[in-house]
């Protein structure tokens, strides 16, 4: 276990390869749930939570079921089933044991199953490797899921803050709504492009 690896993963998945702005994962919720700051924060927290648990669960499935039996080609089916049931399970568990958290995050959970960032991070955890060819281990995968979620939240909250102000701006009629949201994200992505000079991999 190398502590520096964790730092590299964190910087990489929050800034350099931000899941939304650098890798184009999770665009649908990024555009859909970024109208209000409050719901953006809620969605971000739910995504962090699910991405961390999904990384843990899919890594375990890969290492103890798919790899030993040599059935890696079933990865897509296995992962999406694990994620869908995990989200369902979290929803039921939260409803029963953490009603206050459920009322804050509950409405976002069903949306997360079809968030490509979650399946994306699960596959990236298995596919990515370090310079010396070693794969991510269990802790690095979980950490990658967590920081990926943080990166998603950073992008979502930035976007929501800007869109709340855009509501009051005097825009051309034809740019209102989705078009200006995309142009705004282009500008944010451009700013994040500045991080790409920062290479530590």
């Amino acid at each position: 276990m190398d502590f520096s690896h964790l730092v590299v993963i964190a910087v990489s998945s929050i800034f350099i390869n931000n899941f939304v702005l650098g890798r184009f994962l999770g665009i649908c919720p990024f555009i859909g749930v970024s109208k209000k700051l409050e719901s953006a924060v809620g969605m971000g927290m739910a995504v962090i939570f699910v991405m961390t648990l999904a990384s843990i669960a899919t890594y375990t499935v890969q290492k103890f079921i798919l790899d030993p039996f040599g059935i890696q080609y079933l990865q897509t089916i296995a992962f999406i089933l694990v994620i869908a049931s995990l989200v369902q399970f979290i929803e039921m568990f939260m409803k029963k044991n953490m009603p206050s958290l459920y009322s804050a995050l509950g409405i976002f959970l069903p949306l997360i199953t079809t968030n490509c960032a979650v399946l994306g991070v699960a596959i990236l955890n298995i596919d990515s490797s370090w310079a010396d060819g070693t794969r991510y281990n269990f802790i690095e995968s979980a950490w990658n899921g967590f920081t990926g979620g943080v990166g998603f939240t950073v992008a979502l909250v930035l976007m929501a803050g800007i869109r709340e102000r855009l509501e009051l701006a005097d825009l051309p009629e034809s740019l209102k709504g989705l078009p200006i949201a995309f142009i705004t994200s282009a500008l944010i992505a451009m700013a994040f492009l500045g991080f790409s000079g920062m290479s530590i991999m």
Partner: protein
Amino acid sequence: MSVMKNLTKGFFKENPVLVLALGLCPSLAVTTSIENGIGMGLAATAVLIGSSTIISFLKKFIPESIRIPIFIVIIATFVTMIDLTLQAFIPALSKSLGLFIPLIVVNCIILGRAEAYASKNSVFSSMIDALGMGIGFTIALVLISSVREFAGTGSLFGYPLFQLMGIEGFQGSIMMILPPGGFLTMGLILGFMQWNKLRKKAKEGGR
């Protein structure tokens, strides 16, 4: 609805990307060149036709309460088939689309058509609907990728247009190939669509 109308509604009027704003991740991520755009569009179309047909066949046997997981498993099966086929026969395309082939599973267009159309309509009309939506998705991808490829590298389909016309020293804007260009192109195309819609509305209102 006539078969022709059912087929063509997905092209422009109900275009999944440009009008319904579904399937945004792949339409921004893989549209760095027209080749990738067409490859992604056709892969998604194949999955869409396969899954819509099967789901429409099985609609009487799928219990209401667990329909979403069943849809996802059916879709994932087709995605795996396409993934393995591409790896075997077109490895270059498979490599450049990379992560976004398995991610066809969570493309909202496919689940959306399964839920909104295939689970309620006959097998034949579901196939036609899937084909139309798939072509519409491909049209949108080609549109976005041609803008990005042209502005980013000055070429179309990999042919350097400016060099062919004898203009030397054209330098594309690399930013259009990078993520910001994807967002910008998408925003401008959607803005154009909205402008067109408003213009039509104003014309009708003035009559």
